[in-house]
């Protein structure tokens, strides 16, 4: 099966600019996650979708971050305006509903200068 697809792989922007990331999950996976991994830390959940509804966005900085999952398939994560501390790898993951491991994409490495 095809894996989780993410684009772009790399992005460099200046602070206060905006940026968007795209994710296409594994076909048939109902649940989609966005994680942020800062250098030297483990991935941290930003938002979780079940089909096209939000299950958990408690750690999403909603003043600058937004995410949507149209038609329960693809998802985009946006940052506007970006801050230096947003420099990280943004990982998208998906899983079938229920008790199963997450499958991760290769991530987007964001550098904010």
């Amino acid at each position, binding site marked *: 099966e095809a894996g989780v697809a993410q684009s772009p792989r790399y992005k460099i922007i200046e602070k206060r600019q905006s940026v968007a990331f795209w994710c296409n999950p594994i076909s048939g996976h109902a649940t989609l996650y966005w994680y942020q991994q800062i250098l030297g830390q*483990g991935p941290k959940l930003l938002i979780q979708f079940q089909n096209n509804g939000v299950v958990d966005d408690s750690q999403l900085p909603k003043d600058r971050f937004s995410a949507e999952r149209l038609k329960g398939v693809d998802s985009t994560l946006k940052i506007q305006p970006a801050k230096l501390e947003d420099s990280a790898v943004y990982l998208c993951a998906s899983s079938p509903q229920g008790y199963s*491991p997450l499958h991760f994409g290769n991530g987007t490495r964001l550098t904010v200068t």
Partner: protein
Amino acid sequence: DQQVKQNSPSLSVQEGRISILNCDYTNSMFDYFLWYKKYPAEGPTFLISISSIKDKNEDGRFTVFLNKSAKHLSLHIVPSQPGDSAVYFCAASDLGYGGATNKLIFGTGTLLAVQP
């Protein structure tokens, strides 16, 4: 407050020997634990998991042990191979909460280097 801790940032072992990676957790509600492996410039890849009703799960060269009373789990790799060199993340989940969220809390990772 870090709920999942991997206190060893790095580990170096000789090829053919055993690698033991450790993980501690603080939340007694966690009931599902996973290990992920990550190569540079790639996303984490699922390796092995264990639910809290078990104390051991084995898959080929990989075995995960869970000690609930100590809130500790470990990953054993025997024998270690150079291709095992990667960052290993421990993750935990509280599936008892509705069973559907599957929210994973990750540790900070341990860099394993297997020397030929």
